[in-house]
């Protein structure tokens, strides 16, 4: 029954979408759940030209609109994945496009050129309600596309000094994508710069935390000098700078406080050191990883710095995360910090993001806060809240109709719109499932697709 409804809904919306962009779609009988709200609002969402034109109670259905009956289903904004590799990886061990191993390129590395909308990973993430993602370079130490499972025997060599990776103070620049079909997936490039701190930061700087800060300050000073004296630099009449010209250029918006710096830091003392650096140098900061952020919550809140975290991490995985706790998100929320919640791994298990939000709630976060942490907060943090992150007029029609509570494993998406276009509720995984569902067919599965 539910299955039929889903098919019907998808079919209806698909018709609407293919009927040209001018078509107006009204999703009625919906329970609209916007970030921050404790309870859903009964109402409707009206979509035109890929944008939301109205959402909420007492929204009338425009004449001539295609009507989609949500039948009381919960409608949320599409989720915004952070620390993502979506579109930049197929199979992790085969390779990805978030990690640069040349020593000549750091800050200037830009993920926007790699994005592949045909990735089979994308539909799997989308079925988890994700409609946009912040594709993030992987910093030394693994943040970015962190946490892919490695069962492997690779652990036989883990912990050994890594000589394979280039050592960079700056891992490169992130971009926001939308998980729409078709070629146009880039929503906004150059949304943030990534840098490792703590153990990983020490490593890129030659082995000690103090060294990284010296090198960073030198780099920042060099960027400012370069910005002031471009002409001299171009004439080769200038002193040597610590970074390549491309990296210097890329860092100008960072030192000017326009482009945020994603600082991957976990230990409380490292977080404090990064906060001080950002204050001294007037940098715009985003904390990522942040296992012990709860211990620094008042300072983080006072500085107005947002935090990206994975709420399932509660182990002392290193001496930097001795204070890791499942209540990190809840405690930061209570202190007034803007929190964004990530999925498990940058791509293949990104769809577990909604479960992670539920786990944060199970451990004390408010439901409204957890929804914000997977929608409007990441949108704000990365400067795309004018386009995505909530169901408000003028924003892109990126939304999901759910069969139930969106954080529950037993709930499924019934309709997914990206820029107003219905996305197929399919993935290669489901194709495989259906191919092998009946093993007694006379013809081999190879003939079934």
């Amino acid at each position, binding site marked *: 029954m539910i299955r039929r409804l889903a098919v019907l809904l998808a079919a209806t919306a698909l018709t609407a979408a293919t009927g040209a962009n001018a078509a107006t779609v009204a999703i009625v009988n919906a329970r609209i759940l916007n970030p921050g709200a404790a309870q859903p609002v009964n109402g409707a969402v009206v979509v035109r030209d890929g944008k939301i034109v109205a959402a909420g109670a007492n929204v009338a259905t425009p004449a001539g609109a295609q009507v989609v009956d949500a039948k009381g289903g919960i409608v949320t904004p599409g989720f915004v994945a952070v620390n993502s590799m979506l579109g930049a990886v197929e*199979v992790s*061990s085969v390779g990805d496009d978030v990690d640069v191993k040349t020593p000549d390129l750091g800050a200037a590395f830009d993920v926007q050129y790699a994005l592949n909308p045909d990735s089979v990973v994308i539909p799997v993430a989308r079925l988890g309600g994700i409609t946009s993602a912040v594709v993030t370079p992987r910093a030394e130490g693994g943040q970015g596309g962190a946490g*892919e499972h490695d069962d492997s025997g690779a652990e036989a060599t883990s912990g050994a000094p890594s000589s394979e990776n280039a050592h960079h103070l700056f891992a490169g620049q992130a971009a926001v994508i939308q998980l729409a079909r078709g070629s146009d997936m880039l929503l906004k490039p150059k949304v943030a710069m990534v840098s490792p701190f703590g153990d990983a930061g020490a490593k890129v700087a030659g082995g000690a935390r103090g060294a990284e800060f010296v090198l960073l300050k030198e780099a920042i000073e060099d960027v400012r000098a370069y910005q002031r004296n471009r002409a001299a630099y171009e004439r080769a009449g200038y002193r040597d700078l610590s970074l390549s010209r491309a990296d210097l250029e890329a860092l100008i918006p960072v030192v000017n406080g326009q482009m945020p710096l994603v600082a991957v830091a976990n230990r409380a003392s490292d977080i404090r050191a990064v906060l001080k650096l950002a204050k001294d140098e007037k940098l715009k900061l985003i904390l990522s990883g942040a296992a012990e952020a709860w211990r620094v919550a008042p300072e983080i809140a006072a500085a107005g710095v947002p935090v990206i975290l994975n709420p399932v991490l509660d182990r002392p995985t290193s001496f930097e995360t001795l204070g890791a706790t499942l209540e990190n998100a809840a405690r930061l929320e209570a202190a007034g910090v803007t929190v964004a919640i990530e999925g498990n791994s940058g791509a293949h298990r990104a769809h577990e993001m909604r479960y992670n939000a539920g786990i944060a709630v199970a451990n004390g976060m408010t439901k409204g806060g957890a929804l914000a942490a997977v929608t409007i907060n990441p949108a704000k943090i990365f400067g795309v809240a004018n386009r995505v992150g909530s169901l408000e007029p003028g924003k892109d029609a990126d939304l999901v109709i759910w069969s139930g509570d969106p954080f529950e494993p037993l*709930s499924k998406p019934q309709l997914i719109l990206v820029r107003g276009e219905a996305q197929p509720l399919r993935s290669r995984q489901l194709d495989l499932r259906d191919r*092998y*569902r009946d093993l007694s067919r006379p013809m081999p599965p190879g003939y079934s697709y």
Partner: protein
Amino acid sequence: MKRVFSVALALLASASLAACATTTAKPAPGKSQTASNGGGGPPPAPLPKGLDPAANKDPFPSTYRPLPGRDVALVGATVLTGTGAQIENGTVLIKAGRIAAVGQGLAVPAGYETVDARGKWITPGLIDTHSHLGVYPSPEVQAHSDGNEAIDPNTAQVWAEHSVWPQDPGFNLARAGGVTTLLVLPGSANLFGGRGVTLRNVPGRTVQDMKFPGAPYTLKMACGENPKRVYGGKGRSPATRMGNVAGYRAAWINAADYMRKWDDYRAKVARGDKADPPKRDLQLDTLVGVLKGEILVENHCYRADEMAQMIDISKEFGYRITAFHHTVEAYKIADLLAKNDICAATWTNWWGSKLEMNDSVEANVPLVEAAGGCAIIKSDDPDLIQRLNQEAAEAMAAGRALGMPITEAQAIRWITANPAKALGIAAEVGTLEPGKRGDVTLWDGNPFSIYTRAQRVWIDGGLAYDRTDPRFQAKSDFELGQESRR
């Protein structure tokens, strides 16, 4: 007074455990050599200690003792028994560390501590068939990397228990997730990774304090990418999947030969003939244990085609594969696995980190079960082990999306009864049936909800975890003195 009482109970419980260990222990084949020595000559001198593989098959015996506990009655809960039943307003009685009774509205006999479980759910303690806790403990530093003896494709001679650090904080976190028993395995770098060890999830000073009394040994084997990458990368065999298979077969040939030599030796001794004993070989001892059916094969294997080949190898040499692990393609050969009575231990939605795990489907477990097979959700991960119930919920959801009417009562078996079967301990744990160990998890709601957490965990009837009482939240030595903790 109360303390004395609980000590007495504990003694009682350990007495019954010892009895159980005795009855489940296999008769040692070596014993027959003295009994049937009818050749007329003087009985041959026994082999020096340590040289006869059959003389002592348990050289690192369990010193497990249940936590102190008293008879307890959990009253008024929704009970998932692990046998496929769901009981509303259920009562679970635990007496002397064992399940005494489970039923709807049972009267509580005198002398029981009563726990009001109304509005809560009760399941058997969860069992994880694939963990590396202790062998890859937290913090994950090189000094703690003790799970892969990646120096040779065959290291059947190593035993995971000799790497287990009982102070891994992960054990405590897993207990807070309702896990009461777990199999700790070596890693998968090698074709034969070594023996696993089945543990009671109680804090121990030594690994022997945690060993599940009477649980059979297991052997970790691995297919596919890992062995060929690790050894191919070192310029040696196996460098390909066909090299993997040649490696398994060569090892089983050696094991069969070794077994024959010992059998010949024992036959000669039994006849009173003069005989030189073969030299004991720890690697071959383990493989012979598999050939004799005493050691269970736990086989890391992702792809369907490779699993089919492993089944053929097992038939060629006459052993049984108890479970395939990871097995993200089990759904492609669910019929074959069911026919051969091999469990499939997998995740719901882990995939894509390497090519051999590219064909995962979320409905893998429901599809295995629908074909009549033994389906298991396991963690292979110190974070996921804290949430096996949620991974099972995701599998249940995938099954329901296919129109399968999978109930919670059925799905709970993926993390309780079926794992018990795969570890050879189903007579002791995995369901809430009278006589079984009192391993019980009390949840604050439906365990298949993302919002539900384990409230209390009993192991052999002793309270091992209580979310609301710090006295029952064990901390490892490593966690002490860390002022930054929580």
